[in-house]
């Protein structure tokens, strides 16, 4: 049995690729060493958010968000898609300048965003503390229960004929196919490495490192938070340095639960909860939303983001290979950018013109052929 495409990894990125490629009538096999969506996808926040750390990031998140908002009508109820919008919270006048800059950038990208003063911010989010300068309301952002969204994509792929094999460990990827731990060799015309934080193990050309994060979820407190809230200081703290960082980021789940992030740590292999950074993370959140202190927290967990050096994913052919493609390294934006990634990759494989330029995401941007 041979396949047109073998996808290694059934996280949301692999699942989206499978759905897209099989819809184009390719015979697809998805392999995962564990179960569907059990890696980074399972650990993350399900945000669908426009981000503008770079022009390329803005293009990919914007394109992907559009795809999500179209797909929304087909998503099942358990995917818990909610068009709640994002508010970028500005603590002071400095950050209000950032709000204004962001608003212009988003507008130029065709995405309306509304500038809020301190009072308007409190009206929309009464549990934020007083005295915050304002914020930027991005209406078109959403949240989703990414696990069920991934299941939906996998099931869609399966309906188009995709075969899914979980509990199947791939140990080698070559231009001819993949080799499994049990010695089995599967031939394929195209191989996609969508193995997330494990992608570099199979394709050493990809420079992906683990970036650990912590999340906490509360009991149900309906309406306590109404939008996804992200501090604008996030830009400074989250992406800037190599050191450990925390930022205020809460997300209302459709269930009424509040998902609280975020922390970022490099060079940590242990998945154990680090109470020190967790404390920093919650304290940061209390600075913005003091009443979070008393909310009952049901669970805390950790996960690893697959991070690249320029915070952009690898999408496209891996240099030095004819048939091996990457769809990996999505850092903390994999839920958002999964759909865009899948479409870009499908275009690349089928030789079609992509909806947005693929060049900024090509692995060759940081990899020299050897």
């Amino acid at each position, binding site marked *: 049995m041979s396949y047109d495409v073998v996808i290694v990894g059934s996280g949301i990125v692999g699942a989206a690729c499978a759905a897209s490629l099989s819809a184009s009538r390719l015979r697809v096999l998805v392999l995962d060493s564990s179960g569907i969506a059990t890696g980074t996808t399972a650990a993350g926040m399900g945000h669908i958010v426009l981000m503008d750390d770079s022009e390329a990031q803005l293009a990919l998140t914007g394109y992907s968000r559009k795809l999500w908002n179209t797909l929304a009508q087909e998503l099942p109820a358990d995917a818990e898609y909610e068009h709640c919008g994002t508010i970028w919270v500005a603590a002071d006048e400095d950050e209000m300048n950032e709000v204004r800059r962001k608003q212009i950038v988003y507008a130029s990208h065709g995405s309306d965003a509304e500038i809020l003063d301190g009072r308007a911010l409190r009206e929309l989010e009464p549990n934020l503390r007083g005295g915050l300068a304002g914020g930027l309301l991005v209406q078109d952002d959403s949240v989703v229960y990414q696990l069920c969204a991934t299941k939906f994509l996998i099931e869609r792929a399966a309906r188009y004929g995709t075969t899914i094999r979980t509990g199947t460990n791939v140990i080698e990827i070559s231009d001819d196919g993949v080799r499994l731990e049990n010695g089995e060799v599967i031939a394929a015309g195209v191989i996609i490495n969508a193995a997330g934080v494990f992608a570099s193990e199979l394709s050493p050309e990809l420079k992906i490192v683990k970036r650990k994060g912590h999340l906490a979820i509360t*009991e*149900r*407190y309906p309406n306590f938070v109404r939008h996804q809230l992200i501090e604008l200081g996030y830009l400074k703290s989250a992406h800037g340095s190599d050191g450990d960082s925390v930022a205020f980021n809460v997300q209302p789940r459709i*269930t009424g639960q509040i998902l609280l992030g975020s922390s970022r740590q490099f060079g940590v292999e242990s998945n154990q909860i680090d109470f020190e950074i967790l404390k920093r993370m919650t304290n940061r959140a209390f600075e913005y939303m003091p009443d979070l202190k*008393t909310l*009952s927290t049901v669970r805390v967990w950790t996960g690893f983001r697959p991070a690249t050096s320029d915070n952009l994913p690898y999408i496209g052919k891996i240099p030095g290979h004819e048939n091996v493609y990457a769809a990996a390294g999505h850092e903390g934006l994999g839920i958002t950018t999964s759909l865009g990634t899948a479409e870009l990759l499908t275009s690349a494989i089928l030789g079609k013109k992509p909806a947005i330029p693929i060049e900024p995401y090509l692995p060759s941007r940081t990899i020299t052929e050897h």
Partner: protein
Amino acid sequence: MITLTINKISITVDEGTTIAAAILNAGVTAFRKSVTGEPRGAVCGMGICFECRVTIDGIAHQRSCNVIAADGMEVVTDE
């Protein structure tokens, strides 16, 4: 005797009574609404199952079986 309110109705219970017992003695059986809106009441009686959660003095999700009634407490159920 201890006097507290359950859903704004004043009731009196013996000292040492748990909030869960006080609620049931007051004739209220729905302690909380489940995720899908079902009424739920106390089950395990020992703080394990979390079915008997109510709001006590404004703080939601308190296990009523593990809280002893005190004078002036305000208990709200079925939220």
